[in-house]
């Protein structure tokens, strides 16, 4: 089996390693043994048809879904799992989750809080950062995603693109070691996709480690160091974007790329 990591980066330390991950919903096996390694600074794009298990894989990494079996290592720390795959150490999971910031398809901002309150919520209450420090940082981050003037607005009064950018600011506020993007543009109107992709592109350029589940093939080709194609719960093909998109080997991947083109 070829080394699943991008070869040029193998000197950098591992950020995430998943080994032989299995997950079932009832009798339906969604992940049938997935292994993946991302090193610090990697941008890994995960593509695949609907039901291929790509979102489930991402959600298993921070245990929003409980895997059935397998091993997950985050920044060198192995997540303690019971025999049935459930997390054995609640404190460890909570600690690890604060290092893995997730950006959701439906944004999932807290609607009863302003953008500023959304961004400082986790730093202040979970990470116990002094409030004024968190507020100053939140203003910086909101300005950075182009929402500097919306700090006191409530999410429901903003467009989907603005909400998703605010959600990215919330993710950055915990200074994550890995960012998990779960189809961040799938719920957006077409004309709003660009503004969110611009923000993600900037983050990739500054060397953030990210796992990105996406339907935006052009974008994946442009920003990813490594592309993983999932088919029915297995990694069907993976490699550098030029290879995966330019010279796909698997018949299924070829078909998939034709269907989304």
């Amino acid at each position, binding site marked *: 089996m070829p080394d699943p990591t991008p070869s040029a980066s193998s000197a950098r330390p591992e950020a995430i390693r998943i080994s032989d991950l299995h997950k079932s919903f009832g009798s339906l096996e969604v992940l049938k043994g997935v292994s993946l390694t991302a090193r610090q600074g990697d941008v890994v794009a995960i593509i695949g048809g609907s039901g291929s298990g790509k979102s489930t894989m991402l959600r298993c990494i*921070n245990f*929003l879904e409980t895997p059935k079996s397998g091993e997950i290592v985050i920044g060198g720390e192995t997540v303690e799992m019971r025999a049935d795959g459930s997390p054995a150490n*609640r404190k460890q*999971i*909570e*600690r*690890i*989750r*604060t290092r*893995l*910031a*997730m950006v*959701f398809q*439906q*944004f*999932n*901002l*807290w*609607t*009863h*809080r*302003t953008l500023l309150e959304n961004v400082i*919520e*986790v730093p202040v*209450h*979970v990470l116990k950062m002094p409030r004024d420090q968190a507020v100053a940082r939140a203003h910086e981050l909101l300005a950075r995603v182009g929402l500097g003037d919306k700090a006191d607005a*409530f*999410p*429901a*009064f903003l467009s989907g693109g603005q909400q998703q950018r605010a959600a990215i600011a*919330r993710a950055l506020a*915990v200074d994550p070691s890995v960012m998990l993007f779960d189809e961040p543009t799938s719920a957006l109107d077409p004309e709003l996709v660009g503004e969110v992709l611009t923000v993600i592109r900037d983050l990739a350029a500054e060397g953030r480690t990210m796992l990105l589940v996406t339907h935006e093939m052009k974008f994946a080709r442009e920003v990813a160091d490594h592309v993983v194609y999932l088919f029915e719960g297995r990694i069907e093909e993976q490699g550098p974007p030029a290879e995966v998109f330019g010279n796909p080997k698997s018949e299924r991947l070829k078909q998939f790329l034709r269907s989304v083109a």
Partner: protein
Amino acid sequence: MTNVLELLGLAESAELLALSPPGWGGNLLRGLLNSLQIAFGAFGMGLIIGLFGAYGKLYGGPVLRDLLAIYTTVIRAVPELVLILILYYVGTDLINKAATAMGYDRVEISGIVAGIWVLGIVQGAYATEVLRGAIKAVPPGQIEAARAYGMPAFMTMRRVTIPAMMSFATPGLANLWLIATKDTALLAIVGFAELTLETRQAASSTRAYFTFFLAAGALYLLVTLFSGLIFGWIERWARRGQPSLKGGQP
């Protein structure tokens, strides 16, 4: 003022309602105060029972869920008057039996405490359902986001679930509060000196039934109007961040 009252033939009523004896107004107000104390206590106790009940029904194990289902079904099935009679007499009897069994003297149970307990248990059953519905109405993604960022369960409840459900729960809770204020009248049957019992005593002593029951009605109405103001304010606060439904445009 006096002339106007005389003109309307209400001078006698005004005298009867005077705050100091021989007027009965003071008694009515004392009754109102007792009623409000019980309503407040029962509503608060109902909220606490309701929060535990709702969480238990949503996330508890099968045994807890069954027990809570029995609690809410039975309490909501039986007329409140009957429940008050049962809980009041059975409750005090049980406590006294327990007290004598443990070698203490029979205890006199204060009307206020008994009233709060009895109505609180009734309120708790309804509040369980109100809060369960409200928690279920919170978009699951918001709770998931809290988990994904490492919030422990209790902090998620305190910082995300409860504030987010408030806007869904407030109308139902406002109803419960108003029901609580009026259910206190049922405690008259066990001889507790709340507003309705005080009114009845005043009325039967003076034969001025109309005057006193009208006055009591006005007091209940005042409580309702004032509560409406408070709950309106709470609801506006709870709905902060949500577009007005009138505007139509989110």
